[in-house]
């Protein structure tokens, strides 16, 4: 039973890699990029949310916001540890970048990411108060749920396992946002909510990246991704539209 096979064939047939020692170089690079995108997005998301804790209208809301900050930071830590096993300097990584940095609020939606971190583009835009934060958290949370479903079957087993722990917590954050929004609408904040939905919808939509990525076949063959950006985007549009409808809101035209 000592026969081996080409690692590319192994991956193409659904094989799993389990530690840095058996990971080919190009696979390592793609995996690191995926993990860095996750870590940077969680850190940037948590940093942005930390600023709105005090904007919460009541104790319950502030607890929810604080919990989101805590858990997103912890989610980042889980995956950063895996990057550490590949040689990343985890202490420095956590501090090498000002994660709360944002572009001006009126920056047009765009998919070009900041040159110095890998956060999803939507996290480059600043939150504008409590209502805005809750809306962003719902729309982005639904996007995160869709994106994480891709990683549950990642061919890098330790990453898939980390995501299995992370995904239910992220889902809970999205639920908190939906509950919060329901409350805000009941309090007559519908106009403000609609304004924020109009602001965030195109920005979250763009965070899925371009529909056709030349890398998607490579990533598929490596077992690191399964669906295209366009497929994930369409799934999000569907569930986000339904979520808004449930709240009595319409999705914006774009």
């Amino acid at each position, binding site marked *: *039973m*000592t*026969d*081996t*096979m080409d*690692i590319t064939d*192994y991956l193409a*047939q*659904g*094989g*799993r*890699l*389990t*530690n840095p*020692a*058996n990971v080919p*170089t*190009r696979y390592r*690079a*793609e995996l*690191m*990029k995926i993990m*860095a*995108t996750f870590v*940077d997005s969680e850190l940037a998301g948590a940093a942005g949310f930390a600023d709105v804790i005090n904007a919460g209208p009541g104790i319950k809301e502030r607890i929810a916001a604080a919990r989101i900050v805590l858990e997103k930071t912890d989610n980042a830590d889980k995956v950063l540890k895996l*990057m*550490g*096993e*590949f*040689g*990343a*300097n*985890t202490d*420095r*990584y956590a501090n*090498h*970048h000002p994660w709360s940095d944002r572009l001006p609020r009126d920056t047009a939606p765009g998919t070009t990411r900041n*040159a*110095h*971190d*890998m956060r999803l583009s939507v996290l480059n835009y600043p939150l504008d108060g409590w209502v805005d934060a809750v809306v962003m958290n719902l729309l982005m949370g639904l996007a995160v749920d869709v994106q994480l479903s891709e990683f*549950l*079957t990642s061919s890098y*087993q*330790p990453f*898939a*396992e980390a995501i*299995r722990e992370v995904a239910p917590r992220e889902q809970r954050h999205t639920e908190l946002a939906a509950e919060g929004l329901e409350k805000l609408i009941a309090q007559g904040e519908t106009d403000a909510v609609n304004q924020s939905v109009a602001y965030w919808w195109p920005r979250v939509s763009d965070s899925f990246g371009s529909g056709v990525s*030349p*890398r998607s076949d490579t990533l598929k063959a490596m077992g690191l991704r399964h669906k295209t950006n366009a497929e994930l985007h369409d799934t999000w549009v569907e569930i986000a539209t339904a979520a808004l409808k449930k709240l009595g809101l319409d999705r914006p035209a774009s």
Partner: protein
Amino acid sequence: MARFHQLSVTDVTKTIRDAVVVTLKPVNGGDFDFIQGQYLTFRQDFDGTEVRRSYSICAGKDDGVLQVGIKKVDGGAFSTWANESLKPGMTIEAMEPMGSFHTPIDPQQPKNYLGFAGGSGITPVLSIMKTVLRREPESTFTLVYANRGVNTIMFREDLEDLKNLYMGRLTVIHVLESDAQDIDLFTGRVDADKCKALFEHWIDIDSIDTTFICGPEPMMLGIAAALREHGLTDEQIKFELFASAQPGRLARRASSSASGAAAKSTEATITMDGSARSFTMDKDQSILDAALENALDAPYACKAGVCSTCKCKVLEGEVEMIANHALEDYEVAQGYVLSCQSYPLTDRVVVDYDQ
């Protein structure tokens, strides 16, 4: 960051002709309180070249020892050395235990485990088996153990002892490739078909909570396919694959023929995904930025020298790495650099992202 600690070798025992069980004791700290199924990464210098190899811990949590099993691989520098030269009293360097080939132990929760091991893939499975049988008094474990023949079965006697100790809770099925057995089913290779046959007659697959697979790639694929076909989810199927199956890389030092010319630009050749591209770049531009500017999809994340995503190897010429918070000395000695922090010094550089 990964750090190595000294361990003293207290015992080396042959388990079969070409495999040893090495017992270790930490000398100067490090947290070696492992989780069942984890592995240790060792480093050893061979004629000036550092070789790193990972081996699974084969001891159970309650054995009170730290033990790894090392099977000799043809042409493998480390495994040959461990089998032929390693003696009690010697010191060896290893990182703290790593790996996630395990599930949480819950003494209150009876579970049915199914393990598959091929050859030396038994080491982590043995550690898991010993630990769950001891710590989960209601759980059962079925082991399907594939080997070429009777004389290549590692830990054969230990498995017999465990069977007697945990009568009724541990089942061991030996499947031998070349030695005939009483039951035809137990002869041959463990592949998808063999698994199907086992699930029909010997293993109640519907009762299985968690499976552990450690062995050669084709074997793991066949088993996983059969398990998925029988309704097990990815969450229930735990793989462990080791580098020992992959050929060791030959470490070559980058030829550093520095030329004194003070040109401002450099002729760069960058290899990625198997193809090379050449272009002229400024010396005050990083290798990574130059690659990106020339439409190469070079990997990077932090651009601050901490994440190591942009790691590449300098094959020709010299570069200056202005910051390095991620690569270790031995990697730098082999010619690896962080391309986001590296600027050409020579008029020609050849860099490879594929190595």
